[in-house]
């Protein structure tokens, strides 16, 4: 089965597929709109193998997504907070000949692409117009229209790291996504009666598979929150008005719900599940939430983009007596915890979590070197540390990799350090995670300034980062130091 079959199988269904900005779209309408766009893209002659989507959560995102699936192209979502440098490096890395966008995002995109070293088409999905930007060089021509993808072809390229250089995207195949969708449905016993509220970015692996595609596969409905930011009272309004049955969020969203004083005044009886993952959820706060919403089942999940993404789930029946655990592997996913020699650790001991199953990615796009260190003998080495309890429930204990998880998003300190070192006044930089009551962690920078340089202020460094990095990667604090603590081998000591 291919991703496009999810829509093709329901192309004449009058069931509600998507609710967005006061409008309802049935599966039939969604099919007609998506196939219309697919035809336009085909006719444009710019439909390269990989095509970008630079759109916020919206009906247009859904239409663009399925248009590319119908065309058999690989979907390359670009986060709308991406700045010029990231857009250009993505276009280059993914060989994009075409990017789909709309409205004010089109203006930002066009401004970024003007200096691109080769031609890139920008398709405005609202007005059905295509313009070509960048130098006159045509590097990527339209791809064969007769291309027929198979299940092991890459369906989507999801961003993991690399804002300015060394971008790294995960190749998820049709088979990866479909297997994870099926596992997710079986694990949560989801039905076509579901109505899922989407507030996470749709390009986020967690939302892409576990919410968006899972519900489309079921023939159920998704409701896309059209608020530019997540606020608790807006969340509850949607839950009540649309009789939402499930929601997926990150811990920071759940903490916001808990801090909302009118939370008891809303009818949440239709809500079966709140799934959450991607960051640390304080146990006392989770308990408080479970007691505050006794009719809602809280599902603590664990996964990573490389695993399509879901790997484990702690179901509501275990939510209290196994609190703090991320549960057990979902159907079809195998999980082991190993020591440095690759042997399984005994129960209770900490080791690295490795995963196996049809959900494990094909690899990192054009990065066989990194792929071979991540997937060994078919097992995905997650870099996450954990342990099993006596009943085989998994508990996360830390990370082997150097990652800051802020509001559910992975931030690699090296990316920020690389940007900082690009400033003429910075000699050395070290970025660490600083605790934050809602976001879990936020990046904080320690800087050693270059000698004999003109005056460099913290404000200047902040502005410099703001001009290159998405907002969530801009350090909240810049501490000027005379030197950085180093290990015996000269590496910066982060902790």
């Amino acid at each position: 089965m291919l991703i496009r079959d999810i829509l093709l199988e329901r192309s004449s269904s009058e069931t509600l597929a998507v609710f967005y900005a006061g409008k309802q779209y049935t599966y039939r309408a969604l099919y007609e709109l998506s196939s219309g766009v697919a035809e336009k893209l085909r006719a444009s002659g710019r439909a390269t193998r990989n095509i970008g989507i630079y759109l916020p959560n919206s009906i247009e995102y859904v239409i663009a997504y399925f248009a590319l699936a119908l065309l058999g192209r690989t979907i390359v979502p670009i986060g709308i907070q991406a700045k010029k440098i990231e857009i250009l490096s993505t276009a280059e890395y993914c060989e994009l000949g075409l990017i789909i966008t709309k409205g004010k995002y089109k203006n930002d995109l066009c401004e970024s692409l003007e200096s691109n070293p080769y031609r890139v088409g920008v398709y405005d999905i609202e007005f059905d117009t295509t313009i070509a930007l960048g130098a006159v060089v045509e590097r990527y021509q339209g791809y064969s229209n007769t291309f027929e993808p198979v299940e092991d072809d890459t369906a989507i390229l999801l961003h993991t790291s690399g804002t300015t250089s060394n971008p790294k995207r995960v190749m998820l195949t049709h088979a990866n996504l479909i297997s994870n969708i099926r596992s997710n449905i079986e694990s949560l016993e989801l039905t076509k009666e579901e109505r899922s509220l989407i507030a996470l970015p749709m390009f986020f692996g967690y939302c892409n598979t576990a919410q968006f595609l899972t519900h489309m596969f079921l023939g159920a409905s998704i409701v896309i929150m059209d608020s530019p930011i997540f606020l608790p009272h807006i969340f509850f309004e949607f839950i009540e008005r649309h009789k939402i049955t499930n929601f997926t969020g990150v811990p920071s969203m759940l903490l916001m719900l808990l801090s909302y004083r009118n939370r008891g005044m809303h009818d949440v009886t239709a809500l079966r599940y709140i799934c959450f993952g991607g960051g640390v959820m304080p146990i006392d706060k989770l308990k408080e939430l479970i007691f505050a919403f006794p009719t809602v089942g809280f599902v603590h999940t664990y996964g990573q983009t490389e695993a399509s993404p879901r790997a484990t789930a702690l179901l509501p029946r275990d939510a209290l007596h196994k609190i703090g655990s991320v549960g057990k592997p979902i159907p079809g996913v195998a999980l082991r915890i190993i020591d440095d020699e690759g042997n399984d650790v005994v129960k209770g001991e900490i080791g690295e979590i490795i995963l196996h199953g049809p959900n494990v990615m094909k690899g990192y796009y054009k990065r066989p070197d990194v792929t071979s260190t991540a997937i060994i003998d078919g097992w995905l080495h997650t870099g996450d540390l954990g342990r099993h309890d006596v009943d085989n429930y998994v508990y996360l204990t830390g990370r082997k990799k150097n990652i800051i998880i802020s509001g559910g998003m992975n931030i690699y300190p090296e990316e920020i350090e690389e940007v900082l070192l690009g400033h003429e006044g910075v000699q050395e930089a070290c970025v660490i995670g600083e605790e934050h009551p809602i976001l879990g962690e936020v990046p904080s920078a320690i800087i050693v300034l270059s000698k004999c340089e003109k005056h460099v202020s913290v404000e200047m460094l902040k502005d410099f980062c703001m001009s290159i990095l998405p907002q969530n990667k801009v350090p909240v604090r810049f501490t000027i130091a005379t030197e950085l603590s180093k290990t015996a081998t000269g590496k910066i000591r982060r902790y």
Partner: protein
Amino acid sequence: MVSEVSEKIKMIIISKGKKEVDANSIEEQTNLIDDLGFDSVQMIEFIVSLEESFGVSLDDADVDLDVLSKYGVVVKMIEKKIAKKV
């Protein structure tokens, strides 16, 4: 009084926002989300600070994004709340 409230709100915006903002650049039409890049967490912190700084309570209607995202509208709303208290 009016200028005191508006100046205090400017200070709260500057302290909660991530972007370096000059108080003089915040105008009536300044949009906290579009112009200053406020996200959910910053907006919630902003609401809490407004309540604490002015001793007022903001209900769900007050925290409508059309109201809350524009500096000038927030100033008017807080002034009304303070007037009601007196």
